[in-house]
């Protein structure tokens, strides 16, 4: 989908605002919002690509103006409601309750298996690489062009690289394909490549940094071969 989250090259957003000694979590609610990802993932509400797509479907003005972890709250609500786990009317009602009773406690529950999952997931990770019999269609050195059309649903084919031509500098094997998994489809693994674009190719010679390049990772279906220059 074409949305405001796809920010590369957008003008007019002002300076980068940094903060010295910013805490990891700026408020208690950010901790709970952060924990939504791991716990709701374990409960099967979404995979990481669906999680991102839920954020992408936020109201665009709200996306730009809200706190980062509010994005996570939004996608957890979205998929919680979709799965029938969260009733949004009940959530509104409970929100009013906690607004009026900010010190009211949370329900008590312990779950040692969830704690063990948290530790195992953080230390062990959740790899996105997937085995596949598919042969790679491209190789390092090939000159490729990113398909320029506008896909519906989730994709990682950012607008600023669509229609642009670059050189493959890395071939990484097969990974979950977000254009499938992010739209609630199967993993459908595809080859991943790194493509090097000159700044001039992306932005034009009037504004591009003459000594600038951008490396962008793509899945094989995003690409069309422009020039076979690979090593073989």
């Amino acid at each position, binding site marked *: 989908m074409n949305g405001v989250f796809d*920010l590369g090259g957008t003008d007019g957003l002002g300076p*980068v605002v940094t903060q010295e000694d910013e805490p*990891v979590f700026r408020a208690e609610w950010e901790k709970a919002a952060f924990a939504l990802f791991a716990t709701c993932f374990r409960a099967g509400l979404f995979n990481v690509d669906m999680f991102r797509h839920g954020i992408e479907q936020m109201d665009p003005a709200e996306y730009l103006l809200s706190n980062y972890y509010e994005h996570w709250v939004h996608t957890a609500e979205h998929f919680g409601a979709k799965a029938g786990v969260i009733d949004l009317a009940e959530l509104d009602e409970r929100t009013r309750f906690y607004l009026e009773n900010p010190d009211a406690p949370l329900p008590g529950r312990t779950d040692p298996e969830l704690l063990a999952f948290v530790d195992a997931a953080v230390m062990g990770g959740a790899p996105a690489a997937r085995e596949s019999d598919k042969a790679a269609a491209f190789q390092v050195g090939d000159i490729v062009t990113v398909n320029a059309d506008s896909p519906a649903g989730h994709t990682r084919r950012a607008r600023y690289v669509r229609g642009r031509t670059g050189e493959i500098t890395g071939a990484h094997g097969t990974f979950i394909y977000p254009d499938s998994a992010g739209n609630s489809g199967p993993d459908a693994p595809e080859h991943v490549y790194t493509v090097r674009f000159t700044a001039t190719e992306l932005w034009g010679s009037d504004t591009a940094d003459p000594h600038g390049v951008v490396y962008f990772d793509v899945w094989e279906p995003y690409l069309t071969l422009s020039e076979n220059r690979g090593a073989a």
Partner: protein
Amino acid sequence: MAPTDTRLRSQEEITARVKALEALLIEKGIMTTEAVDRLADIYENEVGPQLGAKVVAKAWTDPAFKSRLLDNATAACAELGIGGLQGEDMVVVENTGEVHNVIVCTLCSCYPWPVLGLPPNWYKAPAYRARIVREPRKVLAEDFGFPVPGDVEIRVWDSSSELRYWVLPTRPAGTEGLSVEQLEALVTRDSMIGVGPAAAPAA
């Protein structure tokens, strides 16, 4: 205003909303407050840029390790017991006198958690994600006070797949006699993102 107030919702409103969601998910058997506390503790106290600094200092002092790091960062970090969520497939890119690297995620907020911890808010905010791919030299100079000479190539790595890029900064001058531990202290988070240099040694 509290740091997390926005033009949309007050701190009180966000707090109540998240508490309500948390309560419902606890009742559904999906969350616990213990899991929230454990995750916060991990990223506040255990996993952060001090781990990336260890990797960098070792690479500065051990050429064979540096070679392995640049060849397969995930495997090299695993030698030091470093790895995990959002670092399953890491790639380290090396700064030199001719090349400066900087990382971003223009589409969301991808970041190598096992070596850098959770990203700072500016990394996840629209301005950085929008501008660093288009005018990196200007952003580095004006927003980060880190001018990169015009003849040095700037390579921006947009983390659009599940590969997680991060930067091996240049070793500061005058650090020949320092121990690995002293070198670690010079490695900043920003230097591993590519928006700043490693710190200079105390005179």
